[in-house]
């Protein structure tokens, strides 16, 4: 198997047993990046090859002398909204052009403490606002399974990096599906842990009560492994709970008992793509074959999730993005007065970001607060209650990730905002409710596009998600398929070893 397509846990074993060196691993990924960066554009910033090889050299040294951490020698990609010291963490926005954070986000710090080699920053929708990767000031990444199509978003670049073999795993962020949807579109596992699991310190905030930084990987086992490495004492995020004794890799092991999979019959009748519908039907059969009982559940308020989600997210965005005032960092336009300077500076926001700031500002104005923002928060409570009731009769809920398949890029560019928001109908409920969820590959369409499914579990029951996901991947091979890099005309010249 190509090193670039080897799951993280296997790479770890190969490095530990001395089957490969960190230098070989890092150089393989570098070589792959050279081939696919231009056609697929996963990265917006890449560490110079010289620094990569220095870090690989150090990693080999630690491996030889028994000082290796769990990620020593493993190349990781990071979404551009997560601060990486001295790398241009610009959230794919002109507002942060040239900004290089003077510190690492806590999760990045933790990964580095474990020995990870952070290769670079990946493309995304501007400030994580979008599900196409097209609102990026950098132009957006392309889907390795079909380069004329979107990879999904907002963590599109991270999905492309892993799926195309340009990183062993990646960090993304999920505010309303931004990890799970691109993971589904690129045949990866995207795990949204329960709110409060990973430290958000150093993440450029968009919807603070909704978002989590989380892993994008090839397998469920890898996701648990990476999540373990991301954990650590958080000193900067007061919403991050303490993790004494948590071990997600351990949680992933063992049998599900009892094993009841909830399914909402209403989803069959909804506007699901035919291929997605069939793949989910097959997934239910797989779970039955694994000994699970499929139980019907009812989530009556889910139909209102998109409206409630966007009101909450936009309100929080308008508040969070007020910090971009051009006074302390990032883009700055100085005019005669302070107000003029603010306005001139904030011209740097892209179209979708402006739309959301204005909508959020509206939702928080005196006249609208009660009818919109507060109402949305009440509906949010009802949605959470729906899930809590459903989890009394099942361990996990099986759901679609996206009602549709990855669109063609030019098609996606012309979708009106509301239609685009509605495509998040299956992913936003988990963020609103504060439960955990995971998307994983469950099929392919006739033209070869990946299809993902979603599992959800009660707050802090990642053990159930991981166990059922592991059981599913032990039985199916969808996650083993790799993107057709060589068949899609992406092969290019392989550079000589420097």
């Amino acid at each position, binding site marked *: 198997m190509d090193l670039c397509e080897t799951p993280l846990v296997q790479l770890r074993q190969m490095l530990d047993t001395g089957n490969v060196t960190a230098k070989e691993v890092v150089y393989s990924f570098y070589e792959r990046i050279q081939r696919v960066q231009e056609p697929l554009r996963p990265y917006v910033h890449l560490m110079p090859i010289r620094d990569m090889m220095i870090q690989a050299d150090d990693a080999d040294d630690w491996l030889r002398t028994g000082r290796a951490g769990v990620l020593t020698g493993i190349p990781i990609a990071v979404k551009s909204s997560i601060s990486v010291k001295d790398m241009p963490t610009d959230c794919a926005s002109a507002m942060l052009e040239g*900004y*290089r954070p*003077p*510190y690492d986000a806590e999760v990045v710090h933790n990964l580095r403490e474990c020995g990870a080699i952070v290769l670079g920053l990946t493309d995304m929708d501007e400030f994580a606002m979008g599900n196409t990767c097209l609102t990026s000031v950098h132009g957006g990444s392309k889907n390795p399974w079909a380069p004329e199509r979107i990879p999904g978003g907002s963590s599109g670049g991270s999905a492309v990096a892993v799926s195309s073999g340009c990183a062993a795993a990646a960090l993304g962020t999920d505010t309303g599906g931004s990890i799970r949807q691109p993971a589904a579109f690129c045949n990866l596992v995207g795990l949204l842990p329960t*709110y*409060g699991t990973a430290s958000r310190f150093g993440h450029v905030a968009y919807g603070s*009560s909704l978002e989590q930084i989380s892993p994008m990987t090839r397998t469920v086992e890898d996701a648990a492994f990476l999540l373990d490495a991301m954990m650590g004492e*958080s*000193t900067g995020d*007061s*919403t991050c*709970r303490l993790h004494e004794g948590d071990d997600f890799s351990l949680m992933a092991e063992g049998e599900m008992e009892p094993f009841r999979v909830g399914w909402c019959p209403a989803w069959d009748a909804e506007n699901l793509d035919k291929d997605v519908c069939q793949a989910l039907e097959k997934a239910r059969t797989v779970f039955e074959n694994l000994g699970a009982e499929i139980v019907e559940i009812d989530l009556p308020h889910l139909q*209102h999730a998109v*409206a*409630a989600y*966007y*009101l909450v997210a936009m309100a929080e965005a*308008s508040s969070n993005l007020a910090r971009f*005032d*051009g*006074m*302390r960092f990032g883009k*700055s336009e*100085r005019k*005669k*007065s*302070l*107000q003029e*300077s*603010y*306005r*001139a500076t*904030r*011209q740097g926001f892209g179209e979708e970001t402006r*739309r959301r*700031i*204005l*909508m959020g*500002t*509206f939702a928080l*104005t005196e006249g*609208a607060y009660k*009818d*919109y923002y*507060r*109402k*949305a*928060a*009440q*509906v949010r*409570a*009802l949605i*959470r209650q729906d899930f809590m009731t459903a989890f009394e009769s099942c361990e996990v809920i099986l759901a679609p990730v996206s009602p549709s398949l990855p669109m063609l890029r030019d098609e996606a560019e012309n979708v*009106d*905002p*509301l239609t685009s*928001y509605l495509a998040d109908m299956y992913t936003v409920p988990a963020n609103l*409710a*504060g439960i955990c969820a995971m998307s994983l590959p469950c099929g392919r369409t006739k033209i070869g596009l990946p299809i993902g499914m979603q599992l959800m579990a009660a*707050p802090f029951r990642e053990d159930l998600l991981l166990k059922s996901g592991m059981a599913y991947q032990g039985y199916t091979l969808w996650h083993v398929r790799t993107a057709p890099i060589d068949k899609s005309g992406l092969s290019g010249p392989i550079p000589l070893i420097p």
Partner: protein
Amino acid sequence: MPPRFDLEKLAKLARIDLDDAEKKELTEELEHILEFMSSLDKVNTEGVAPLFHPNNEHTPLRNDTVREGLDGETVRELAPDCEGPWIRVPKVME
């Protein structure tokens, strides 16, 4: 029906400049989105406590230990305009 919002006021509050073409387009788009969001009116939320945050239960406390913050020089390097040890901003009081 008149729009549910005053776009000029919103733009002023958000410190965002809009030209006429943008104003026209945004008025239509926002109206369209708000109409959809008004579907929440149909949900009976009487007596339901709003959920503003998914874990309201408690905030874990960290140890009260001294740690290093960013030094002035690092902060000034990021700032667009500095003078001596200060970050310079336009006059705040007019």
